[in-house]
């Protein structure tokens, strides 16, 4: 196989920044076959594979890349799917620079192989060819319930269905997908992709019941009474945090969850063709520095804002957002105010936001997370004129379900406590994804779903709990 000695990744075509900043279409357009083959030819097919170790689900990276280099795209996607059931999604949203691509040997002298882009290419290639409906396994006649339809729940459901279980997913919202549908915007992850993954899982025989706020409509005890023999809880970390500063309830202040839900799930960008409105002003401030903050800021721009600021209390280095999205956001004209922390939101006489008072920060000693702690510079307060504020400083565990479930041990922050196999303190109940780890990543949530599926299978074979 010929080797491509370029030190840089084959660039991926994208919509031009000045165009895309005003539309919700996907930003990155994906490789053509030629581009994919050429990028695949950069891979050295290492014997000792750091890349695979960096991937939370151990996708067989050199093997699938080799297939792409040989133009055996079907073979490539087959290899990926052995360990990753949602590659079209992971290829788009994994923080590759912190996972698979982090350990790629090429990264030592130039840019790593664009593993994520190649994974996405293989998945998209399969989709355009039409995904073959799965072979439906023989039924075992055992029922498993899954609560929440984010990546953890979908993955666990898919794996168990393949083993022959009757799986039902109970989802609180009217649409399955979790953060993939209500949080991550269309321009980064087209909803059609999530819909297709959901359809595939339904074709495997999984039943998805929407409008099921578990803990309210049914409890976990009800599920056992209904004949479910195992329950997997994957309800995510959806409880929005506020800052606790004055003025947070002024009109025009949103949590990122509300802001993104109105836009993505409720399609407020089509208002008034759809019925859910949103108010995005001319000058928007998004507080926070993660993926959620980037998504909110870039969505605000697409809703017509003139000026969008990311207000982050640490420096650029500490920002947890995916690097590619930070680059994209900069190209689109998002303004980054680093080392800046809001202390107060200022409103007008009708209760609408008109500004935020911020204080400048400097980096001090490293804190528990190893990142240098930001400390305020006394007397550096200043006011920014702003008419919309989006608070994206993180989320916590939603207690709706855990409150109504007896005997379920929680951590001191309210997450569900589990052992290494995802088992909770209650027999027959597993948990995984953000409700266990706190806000993490799609691929980690999927990994937790897989692990739980294996453990559930074992338990249901011999009914031995620990």
């Amino acid at each position, binding site marked *: 196989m010929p080797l491509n000695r370029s030190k840089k990744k084959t660039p991926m075509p994208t919509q031009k920044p000045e165009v895309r900043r005003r539309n919700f279409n996907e930003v990155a357009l994906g490789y053509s076959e030629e581009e994919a083959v050429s990028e695949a030819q950069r891979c050295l097919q290492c014997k000792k594979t750091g890349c695979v170790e960096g991937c939370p689900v151990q996708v067989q990276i050199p093997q699938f890349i080799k297939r792409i280099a040989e133009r055996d795209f079907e073979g490539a996607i087959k290899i990926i799917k052995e360990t990753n059931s949602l590659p079209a999604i992971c290829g788009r949203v994994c923080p590759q620079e912190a996972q698979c691509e982090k350990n790629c040997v090429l990264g030592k002298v130039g840019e790593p192989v664009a593993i994520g882009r190649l994974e996405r290419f293989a998945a998209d290639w399969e989709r355009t060819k039409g995904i073959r409906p799965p072979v439906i396994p023989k039924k075992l006649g055992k029922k498993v319930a899954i609560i929440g339809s984010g990546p953890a729940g979908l993955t666990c459901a898919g794996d168990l269905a393949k083993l022959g279980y009757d799986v039902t997913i109970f989802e609180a919202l*009217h649409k399955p997908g979790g953060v993939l549908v209500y949080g991550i915007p269309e321009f980064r992850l087209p909803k059609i992709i999530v819909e297709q993954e959901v359809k595939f899982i339904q074709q495997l025989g999984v039943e998805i019941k929407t409008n099921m706020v578990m803990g309210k409509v049914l409890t976990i005890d009800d599920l056992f009474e209904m004949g479910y023999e195992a329950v997997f809880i994957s309800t995510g970390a959806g409880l929005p945090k506020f800052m606790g500063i004055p003025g947070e*309830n002024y009109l025009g202040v949103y949590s990122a969850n*509300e802001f993104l*839900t109105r836009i993505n799930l409720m*399609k407020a960008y*089509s208002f008034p063709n759809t019925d859910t409105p949103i108010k995005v002003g001319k000058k928007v401030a998004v507080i926070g520095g993660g993926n959620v903050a980037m998504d909110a800021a870039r969505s605000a721009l697409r809703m017509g804002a003139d000026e969008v600021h990311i207000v982050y209390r640490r420096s650029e280095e500490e920002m947890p957002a995916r690097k590619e999205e930070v680059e994209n956001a900069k190209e689109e004209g998002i303004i980054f105010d680093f080392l800046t922390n809001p202390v107060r939101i200022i409103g007008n006489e009708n209760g609408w936001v008109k500004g935020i008072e911020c204080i400048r920060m400097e980096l001090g000693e490293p804190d528990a997370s190893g990142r240098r702690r930001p400390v305020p510079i006394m007397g550096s307060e200043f006011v920014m004129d702003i008419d919309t504020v989006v608070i994206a400083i993180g989320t916590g565990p*939603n207690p709706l379900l855990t409150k109504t479930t007896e005997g379920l041990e929680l951590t001191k922050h309210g997450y569900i406590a589990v052992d290494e196999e995802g088992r909770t303190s209650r027999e027959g109940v597993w948990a995984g994804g953000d409700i266990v780890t706190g806000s993490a990543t799609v691929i980690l949530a999927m990994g937790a779903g897989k692990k739980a599926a294996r453990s559930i299978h074992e338990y249901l074979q011999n009914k031995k709990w620990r």
Partner: protein
Amino acid sequence: MFKILEKRELAPSIKLFVMEAPLVAKKARPGQFVILRIKEGGERIPLTIADYDAQNGTVTIVFQEVGKTTRELGTLEAGDYIEDFVGPLGVPVEFPNHKKVLGIGGGLGIAPLYPKLKMLHQQGVEVVSIIGARTAELLILEEEIKAVSDRMYICTDDGSKGRHGFVTVVLKELLEQGEKFDEIIIIGPPILMKIGSEITKPYGIPTMVSLNPIMVDGTGMCGGCRVTVDGEIKFACVDGPAFDGHKVDFDELIKRLATYKEEEKISLERFNEAHECKLINKIEGADKDAVK
């Protein structure tokens, strides 16, 4: 899909639906609500569970046509389906040791008041009620409230029925006469709940109100429904909707309810136009049929 089993017009622009929703009916308790969405692209709106029947698997909702979604809902008929209907949401109310309770319902607030008074009445609690509306025609559920009350007062703003004036006039009188209650429940427009709570406060009588902020998911995920109670942020969908009226920041609630005033107007105007066109088409169609 959820079926509308029965439709009743309680007053001009106030409608009652009996919905087929067995799972919701089974768990529903007074004080809880549902969120519904008529169809794809529609808004999620919260409505109180006005009554429920676990045996028959039905849930009753009462709504006032105030904007696009409630108007569109009003055009549906028995036998029609709506896309989403989720509940029961919110914290059920409880009155463990009460002997005597006063329930006040203003306008549409009478509907959410009803299941609470019904429960109290069934528990053997003495129930006094004051219900009011702008005018006689708009007074709803009079018979139902009467059936669960030991004593009932009616008020209308224009004097067309019962006492002339607001429900708060009667409230004041009862308190001034020295009547004692274990709790007072006030449900209605925020301004009524605010004034009512101010009246009861000096008497030290626990006062429950049911708040109606704008909601999206109803599960505690978006924080859009936040209200300030006793200086703290609460999410009305999961911490409420019932709260201690003496501690609620009503002015903030009232302001926040106006967030989408402009958009609501656009939405309603578009709906009215489209709806009128449809009606005209229907009439023209009917004429054509007649000609044939």
